[in-house]
């Protein structure tokens, strides 16, 4: 029983959509919290707008609200559910900020809801920089000299006092949003100006620069008895100046003496006490001057954070789970250590291995963005690796990122000066420049001088380089040399490239010598006590710790680091597979390297291998598991493209792949084979051709008709894809974006420019099809499906079309040979159905559809993979007794885009335009009984609510002017004031729509100071911006308008279909009251 008897029900706030700075680590922490609270017999009420989370599965809470995390909607949930307590420290900054707002609005007090975990005063003390600075001083610590500013002039005065460069940190923003380093006044105006806008309290801190110092972080826990422990120390490989989320980090700290470490520990303990975090976790960041050891306290987070997730995975100490127990009244000594089962949680984990985390960036999707790393987080995910030494962990982490060319390169040619220069500036690839500079002979001292990276780390990289040199020397690759290389983390592929052999040759050699990794255990205690939880990592050492088993094992391959296009949705499916296969009495074995996820919680599968998802690493795990018991097979269809890409090689190496076979995957992925299948089944695809030259491309475009969709054939996921409308644009694209040649052809597809796009998720067992759902894209064709809002069930699709889609889906599933999930994208143009592509795997929409229809699709897919039939699953109740998936209510999925994270080198914003390349980081679900309401909720949950009153600025591209009338009229009729520039204003006026005309930005202010569109936006006059761009290239006016709106957080709509949907939502909002409905109620 919980120690606190006054709490019977708890409201948990999640963190909403995945955004940069707040990713699925909060699903991991929230899921743990919900589990703990329920197992303690409490009624758990959850609110989270992100459907792709495990925590929002109906079994994790008593009442699950997939509703916007706003004061308005959380208040409605509180009014309906009347919880005793609110736990807001496990849902990131979103939950914490929401809790503060609820407190300030008096909602908590009014309904008698107690805040548990951290109280409002503690949150303020931790998050308010001025108060926090005072606390640091009061306990004898030092902060960087700084000043709080509320106006830009104050910022400039402060900067003069401290000397440039200065650091700008806005208050109460997450992931360092809006912060940056200003080297002069103009940079300061830019950065601090934006920071003041981002801060909900219009407050920024201007701070002396401690660039180049060493950076450390301590993860702490405190209970109500005032027991305080350090869970983990983390050292940043990148010195101060890079957001810790964008830094390569290492656990434990490796370059501190005990004297220095204990100073950090003492400061941390005194800070957590003085801030008054009653119970739970927090982290504290420090900078240490490498020349004299001066310690500066940077900041604290009075809540569970991204670093807590990393620390939990790095140590085996589940911070969020323990924090939840502490919040309901347990003390640390009353809680058992899950791993040893005999020692208590009141201790400090000690590591006998090294953990390295490397962030995953997606700059290639934002080519205009400044790639320099600063104190604003820009990475979209991370990979973690564990090894018995830093070089081993580092090289494993680098290959875990799954970024081509990210592993160290040892080619002898290079430009030392260039590498040294590039080592000065922190970027995604700085570590490569550092390694290259060392490899080219710069020496540790020189590289330290330019990069400020601690010499210890540099010497470790030097050891990797030395090994590469030794390997490249002529002579036999001996067992001893091979073993030493493996101990430094070299992959077979790397050794192959250095020795001019093939990866497979190295593998064969290694097998011949009997050189294989062993698997060690993460046990919190450096082997002092026996570990009962099989949480493993590989290392080239002597003794393996994998226990024998009798039940057959199924290996589930996860999806690796989050990146745009492959995010939490795939982890969700993998977690479901673990649950579903456990239920079938298999021993489930999870392989993944993403520390943010639920899949890498040691509670999820029976065994966890925290390992890179490469062929070599997976093969070694397979080998180790095969040695201790039977292996039924490997699941590759749930983790996205990563495991799917390994399927063929694994099968060729004799590994049984369960579910859809690699041969079937090939049929779907090979354009030729898939095209043949469509022809056989009499299905249509847009006409296309493969161009090997510009003339080819032009001829194909001529044949299929403009517009055409063009992309290089050798890249995946919409990379480099564009829609071109004429010969001129085609020529420009070919010369600009491709290296067209006989080896690198370009795909030219007919683009269905006024089609409705549809996404279908379905299950197939070889006999029967279960069509889970048909989603209609709200954005028109040409927008990547991941970035397009969609609605389930489709709102304007005929029964005839639906039947046609079902038939086509079944034909494709059968033709491909699917066993499990398939996702197909269709388009309907003028009543004709086109097949765009088929993916024989779990799609990004699986969690959304599962929640909308109340059927666990990924679980069903996992069981089908292991031989169950749909008929069986229907009988067992996992699938409906009969028929296809039935949507409950109207569900809208909306994408969340990271525009506000990226700036160009000149400080201006990157363009907020959707296109065929996916750029969204996450998604939300809005659900209600009408489309308008559901869409309205989805917008509130995603980027900010659509306005219910006020003014709207409208500007259409010429070709959209006629189409745009319908939605604009709706807005006008329900009382929204409209502004437009001349062309659009005239078009609207002709339809009898009253609109106030404003000047274009390019026209400048009028003679009497008449405002331009940009002035309206910057002056906060309009509450919504509608701007449809023309063609492919951004024009100055539109770009100014869009970036202006993004910078000020004003919602922006860039497509006609988006406008039509928004208009319906805004009309619904005028009609007032929204209600909240739990998932459990929807499914009843």
């Amino acid at each position, binding site marked *: 029983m919980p120690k606190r008897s006054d709490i019977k029900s708890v409201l948990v706030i999640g963190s909403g959509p995945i955004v940069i700075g707040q990713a699925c680590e909060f699903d991991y922490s929230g899921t743990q919290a919900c589990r703990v609270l329920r197992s303690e017999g409490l009624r758990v009420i959850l609110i989270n707008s992100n459907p792709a989370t495990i925590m929002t599965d109906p079994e994790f809470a008593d009442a699950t609200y997939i509703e916007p995390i706003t004061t308005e909607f959380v208040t409605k949930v509180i009014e309906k559910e009347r919880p005793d307590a609110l736990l807001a420290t496990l849902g990131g900054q979103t939950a914490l900020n929401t809790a503060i707002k609820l407190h300030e609005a008096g909602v908590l007090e009014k309904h008698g809801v107690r805040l548990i975990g951290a109280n409002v005063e503690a949150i303020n003390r931790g998050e308010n920089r001025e108060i926090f600075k005072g606390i640091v001083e009061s306990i004898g610590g030092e902060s960087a000299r700084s000043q709080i500013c509320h106006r830009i002039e104050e910022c400039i005065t402060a900067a003069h006092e401290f000397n440039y460069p200065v650091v700008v940190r806005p208050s109460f923003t997450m992931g360092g949003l809006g912060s940056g380093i200003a080297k002069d006044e103009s940079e300061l105006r830019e950065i601090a100006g934006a920071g003041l806008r981002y801060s909900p309290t219009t407050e920024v801190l201007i701070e002396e620069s401690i660039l180049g110092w060493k950076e450390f972080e301590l993860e702490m826990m405190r209970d109500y008895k005032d027991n305080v422990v350090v869970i983990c*120390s983390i050292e940043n490989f990148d010195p101060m100046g890079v957001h810790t989320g964008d830094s390569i980090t290492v656990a434990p700290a490796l370059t501190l003496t005990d004297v220095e470490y204990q100073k950090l520990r003492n400061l941390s303990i005194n800070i957590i006490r003085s801030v008054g975090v009653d119970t739970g976790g927090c982290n504290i960041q420090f900078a240490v001057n490498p*020349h004299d050891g001066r310690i500066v306290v940077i900041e604290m987070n009075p809540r569970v954070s991204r670093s807590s997730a990393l620390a939990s995975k790095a140590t085996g100490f589940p911070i969020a789970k323990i924090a939840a127990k502490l919040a309901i009244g347990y003390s640390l000594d009353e809680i058992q250590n899950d791993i040893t089962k005999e020692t208590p949680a009141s201790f400090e*984990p000690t*590591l006998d291995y090294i953990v390295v985390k490397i962030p995953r960036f997606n700059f290639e999707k934002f080519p205009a963005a400044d790639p320099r790393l600063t104190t604003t987080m820009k990475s979209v995910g991370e990979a973690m690796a564990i090894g018995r030494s830093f070089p081993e962990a580092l090289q494993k982490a680098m290959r875990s990122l799954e970024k081509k060319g990210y592993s160290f390169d040892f080619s002898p040619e290079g430009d030392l000066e260039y590498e040294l220069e590039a080592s000065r500036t922190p970027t995604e690839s700085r570590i490569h420049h550092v390694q290259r500079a060392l490899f080219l002979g710069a020496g540790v001292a020189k590289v330290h001088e330019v990069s400020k990276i601690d010499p210890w780390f540099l010497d470790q990289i030097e050891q990797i380089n030395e090994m590469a040199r030794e390997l490249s020397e002529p002579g036999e690759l001996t067992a001893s040399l091979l073993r030493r290389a493996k101990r430094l983390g070299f992959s077979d592929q790397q050794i192959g490239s250095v020795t001019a052999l093939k990866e497979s040759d190295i593998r064969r050699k290694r097998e011949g010598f009997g050189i294989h990794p062993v698997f060690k255990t993460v046990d919190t205690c450096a082997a002092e006590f026996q570990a009962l939880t099989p949480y493993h990592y590989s290392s080239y050492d002597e003794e393996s710790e994998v226990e024998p088993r009798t039940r057959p094992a199924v290996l589930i391959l996860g999806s690796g680091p989050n990146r745009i296009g492959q995010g939490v949705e795939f982890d969700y499916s993998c977690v479901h597979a673990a649950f579903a296969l456990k239920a079938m009495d298999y021993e489930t074995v999870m392989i993944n390297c993403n520390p943010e996820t639920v899949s890498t919680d040691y509670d999820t599968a029976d065994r966890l291998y925290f390992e890179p998802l490469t062929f070599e690493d997976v093969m070694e795990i397979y080998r180790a598991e095969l040695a201790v018991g039977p292996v039924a097979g490997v699941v590759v269809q749930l983790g996205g493209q990563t495991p799917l890409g390994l399927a063929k090689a694994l099968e060729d190496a004799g590994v049984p792949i369960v579910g859809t076979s690699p041969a079937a995957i090939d049929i779907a992925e090979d354009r030729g084979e898939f095209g043949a299948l469509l022809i056989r089944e009499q299905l249509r695809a847009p006409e296309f051709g493969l161009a090997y030259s510009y003339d080819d491309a032009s001829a194909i475009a001529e044949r299929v008709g403009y517009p055409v969709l063009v992309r290089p054939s050798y890249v995946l996921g919409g990379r480099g894809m564009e829609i071109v409308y004429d010969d001129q644009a085609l020529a420009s694209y070919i010369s600009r974006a491709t290296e067209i040649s006989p080896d690198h052809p370009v795909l030219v597809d007919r683009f269905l420019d006024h089609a409705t796009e549809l996404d279908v998720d379905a299950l197939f067992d070889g006999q029967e099809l279960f069509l889970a759902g048909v989603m209609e894209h709200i954005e028109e064709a040409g927008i990547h499906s991941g970035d397009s809002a969609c609605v389930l069930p489709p709102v304007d699709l005929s029964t005839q079309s639906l039947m046609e889609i079902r038939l086509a889906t079944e034909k494709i599933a059968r033709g491909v040979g699917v066993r499990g999930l398939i996702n197909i994208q269709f388009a309907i143009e003028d009543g004709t159905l086109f097949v765009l592509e088929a993916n024989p795997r779990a799609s990004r929409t699986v969690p959304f559809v599962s929640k909308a229809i109340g059927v666990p699709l990924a679980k069903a897919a996992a069981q089908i993979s292991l031989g169950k039939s749909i008929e069986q699953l229907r009988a067992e109740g996992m699938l409906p007794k009969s028929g296809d998936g039935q949507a409950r209510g109207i569900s809208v999925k909306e994408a969340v885009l990271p525009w506000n994270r990226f700036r160009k080198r000149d400080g201006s914003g990157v363009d907020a335009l959707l296109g065929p390349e996916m750029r969204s980081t996450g998604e939300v679900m809005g659900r209600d009984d009408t489309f308008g309401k559901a869409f309205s909720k989805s917008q509130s949950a995603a980027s900010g609510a659509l306005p219910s009153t006020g003014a709207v600025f409208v500007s259409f591209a010429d070709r959209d002017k006629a189409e745009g009338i319908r939605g604009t009229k709706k807005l006008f009729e329900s009382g929204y004031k409209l502004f437009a520039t001349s062309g659009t204003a005239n078009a609207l006026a002709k339809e009898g729509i009253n609109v106030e005309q404003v000047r274009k930005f390019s026209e400048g202010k009028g003679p009497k100071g008449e405002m331009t569109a940009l002035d309206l936006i910057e002056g906060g006059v309009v509450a919504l911006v509608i701007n449809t761009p023309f063609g492919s290239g951004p024009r100055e006016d539109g770009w100014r308008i869009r970036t202006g709106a993004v910078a000020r957080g004003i919602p922006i709509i860039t497509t006609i279909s988006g406008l039509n949907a928004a208009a319906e939502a805004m009309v619904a909002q005028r009609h007032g009251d929204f209600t909240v409905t739990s998932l459990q109620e929807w499914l009843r």
Partner: protein
Amino acid sequence: MKNRKSAYLVLDDGRIFEGEAWAKEGETFGEAVFATGMTGYQETLTDPSYFRQVVVMTAPHIGNTGMNTVDEESRRIWVSGFVVRDPSRISSNWRSERDLESELTESGVVGISGIDTRALTRHLRDCGAMRVGIFSGEGLSREEMIRRVRKSPEMVGANLVTEVSIDTKYLVPAVGVKKATVAALDLGIKGATPRLMSERGIEVHVFPFNATFDELSAVRPDGIFLSNGPGDPSTMQSTVELVREILQREIPVFGICFGHQIFGRALGFETYKLRFGHRGINQPVLDKASGKVEITAHNHGFAVRAPTEGIFDTVFGRGRVSHINLNDQVVEGLELLDRPGFSVQYHPEAAAGPHDAAYLFDRFLHLMEGQR
């Protein structure tokens, strides 16, 4: 990369680990113990309690921050052998003066690197601390190495204090206003201990282990301190008698680690050898009076056997177990209720380790002030 010679770590039970020669080449023997601290190898090496022990560091990278003069816990390195997985080639710290390997070599410490320290630790955990030898740069057969290990002395029954203690007493003056005088018995004392007392206004006279009661009395101490140290406490009968005499006179006593074991024996309890001991800086100890947990530094292979619940009687009146280890319920502290005396099994002076238990020196000061 320097090519190193092969070296062997040979355990009493015949298990052999092959690694590379590191630090001094040659052979060495001792009791194999593992230490789990991730920081503080310098403090560990210079802690006299590790005398005659071959210390296995569970943290893989050792030597990263080099060695400096300030962090030495005593006048020399005491371990008889040092086992690490990945020794650092460079020292990276602003306070570093020398590098670890040359310091070990100069001190004549035979080391071994590159072995699977986790496998070795698990073996010691499961089979208990045992005799070990490190052989490097020699061509001995396996049988011969094992034979030599089995000929080396055991830790049980070892009296090592004579070798680590000092010959003549010295004084550590009080910082600021002097509040008390303590006579400390050096059974293997660490530098941090008198330092922490002196910082609290205590003048500390450090005596050789075999000082007599009269010699201690000569400095008119307000209290007597019993330090940590190596070896088997059951060999320390004359020190036990000395402590009994001190308790008779009702002079406040504070013992730590080895001193705690002697204090326990003076109260009439027996000491016993733990299977593999506690050596680390993350041990959770419960203060039974306050209910609070402190994270403490430990380094002991023996422990006191006493009833952990309720009050016990001794010839010096009533007493109780004040602290226990939450990992394994081992007695971590004793206190007398009718006379001024207490002891803890762990290290309030830390170094290496957390400073959570430093309050015990304040408690000692209060105890002495209360007696005046």
